[in-house]
């Protein structure tokens, strides 16, 4: 699904090193598919105990003001730890369409791009400023994220530019399937293998000597 402009309520979760075990504990991944994960999102923090499932009213996403949040504000190294793409699937299933943080773990960043979640890198001071602004009145202070212009804005006009490499930018704006895009280069890939099998035959298993 292409992303150009997002407008949504932002929920602050300004902890550094939010890891994917926190985003989706392993015990919450009980099925082999990519869905059925929303209940497990931040399970260790959202519920008073893993067994009772009684929501902790203090956790940001349990607060009524943030219930419809579509944007998450995070700390440094967001999404570190396990490569489990379930972390991104759980966020997407819960309606999160963008995460804004001072930095992202590389695997998590790639998983976001592959699933149409926009990772926005802004300095920690900017994220803190935004968090402070939205927390007074979350529904009244939605963030607007303009992907083609790479601009994040508050309703009062304050805005911040954010970086994004061309490759993920294009994929997200156009809602492209990376595999389809790559398969257009089938002949280049085949040509590479013809050269490579001569240069490094030991790489190619299952072929007769």
């Amino acid at each position, binding site marked *: 699904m292409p992303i150009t402009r997002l407008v949504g309520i932002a929920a602050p979760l300004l*902890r550094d*090193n939010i*890891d994917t*075990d*926190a985003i989706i*504990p*392993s*015990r919450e*991944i*009980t*099925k*082999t*598919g*990519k869905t059925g994960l929303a209940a497990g999102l931040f399970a*260790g923090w959202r519920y008073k*105990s*893993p067994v009772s499932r009684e929501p902790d009213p203090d956790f940001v996403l349990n607060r009524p003001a943030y219930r419809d949040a579509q944007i998450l504000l995070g700390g*440094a*190294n967001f999404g*570190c*730890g*396990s*490569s*489990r*793409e379930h972390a*991104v699937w759980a966020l997407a299933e819960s309606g999160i369409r963008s995460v804004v943080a001072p*930095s992202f*773990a*590389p*695997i998590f960043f*790639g*998983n976001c791009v*592959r*699933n149409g979640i926009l990772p926005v890198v802004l300095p920690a001071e900017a994220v803190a400023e935004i968090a402070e602004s939205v927390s007074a009145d979350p529904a009244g202070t939605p963030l607007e994220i303009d992907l083609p212009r790479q601009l994040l804005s508050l309703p009062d006009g304050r805005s911040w530019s954010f970086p994004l*490499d*061309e*490759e993920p930018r*294009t994929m997200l704006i156009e809602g492209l399937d*990376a*595999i389809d895009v*790559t*398969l257009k*280069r089938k002949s*280049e*890939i085949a040509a*590479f*293998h013809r050269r*490579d099998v001569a240069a*490094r*035959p*030991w*790489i*190619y*298993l*299952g*072929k007769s*000597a």
Partner: protein
Amino acid sequence: MLSKIWDQHRIADLTGDAALIAIDRIFLHERTGAAALGSMKAAGREVTDPARTFCVMDHIVDTRPGRSDQTLMPGGQAFITETRSAAREAGITLFDVSDPDQGIVHVISPELGIVLPGATLIAPDSHTCTQGAFGALAWGIGSSEAEHAMATGTLRVARPKTMRVTFSGAVAPGVTPKDMILALIARHGAGGGRGHVVEFAGEAVSSLDMEGRMTLCNMATEFAAMTGIIAADQATFEYLEGRRYAPRGGEWEMALAHWRELASDPGSIFDVEIEIEAAGIEPMVSWGTSPEQSVGIGDTVPPDAGERPLAYMGLEPGQPIRGLAIDAAFIGSCTNSRLSDLRRAAALLKGRHVAPGVTALCVPGSTSVKRAAEAEGIDKLFVDAGFQWRESGCSMCFYAGGESFAPGSRVISSTNRNFEGRQGPNIRTHIASPETVVASAIAGRIADPRETAL
């Protein structure tokens, strides 16, 4: 080294810093294998080269003797059975639960000669960087990227920057590669390597055996690095020669000639250089909920430690790390469960016993490691000392197979992550070397292995 491997594998330049990179080896596991293969099938896509695509059951398999497909993890059996049928249908090479070659992916891949110097290898597992110890460009990706690699034989990759971390001089006796990598992350932060391929160099690295190099590279992901890599050398070639998927005969000679050219040229410029005096490193133990929150065994919890990790771990600022009473000890994981790790741990256990009230487990990194350890009587040393001796798998590194210690337990573990809840709800994890784990299990408290050895 990055440039050489990148140039060898670059099929096309994409926009910006990105390139289409050929992927030589893909390794799946049962936690996401079924999802990735199923998703491909639903999209009508086939695995482009099944002969170079592997899969192993390691993540949630039960490790208790006599195991089957049943797991303690609710719903876990489906991951195993669905991955099995998807793997068979796709014609990829599967190492199943009771296969003699079964084990943790990053333990068996080198054992089988699947990872090779100069190769690109990916797996949907963040510790794939472990295999960079062989001079391969090996890194972790998600499930969707695994599908992309299977369907096209390539990945679209942004070219990373380069960092060289030189451990100069020699470590003191009793200091291990686990301590070296924890020292790096403690000093430079869990984000210190972001955007970089980290090349480990220096005498203290080249003097490591292959298993030690794997421990070092294993935690490059905890440093936010794209991956870790160590130049292949004679030790690497000797390790790989004769392994099942390694080249033989004329191809071996051809490969060797190629591999000898891969090391970074003298005078290579790296984007970042870090130097660490190896002699200054102590046995390390984590105190908090990130690997960067680690200190030397003689140190204390930092006076400025944050409230949240202190509360979770039940510690006070300034509290000495040595002497903390523990409830459980775990030896396992792709970080430290290879034969050399078990030998060194067993040597410390001989004639000693786990302290009363401490639950202790040892999970060998692979079924081959388990067999080899048993042939040397290592299992008996562990069991006589009061450890449970298990079948191979990822096990309690991450609350896998639904098995965990009692909530609130303080655990000393040879694993790689001390995150909140990683080993189970409210489990307080301290990560350390296998020697430190064993010394602590014997003492019933976090202990300095150098004192146990005396």
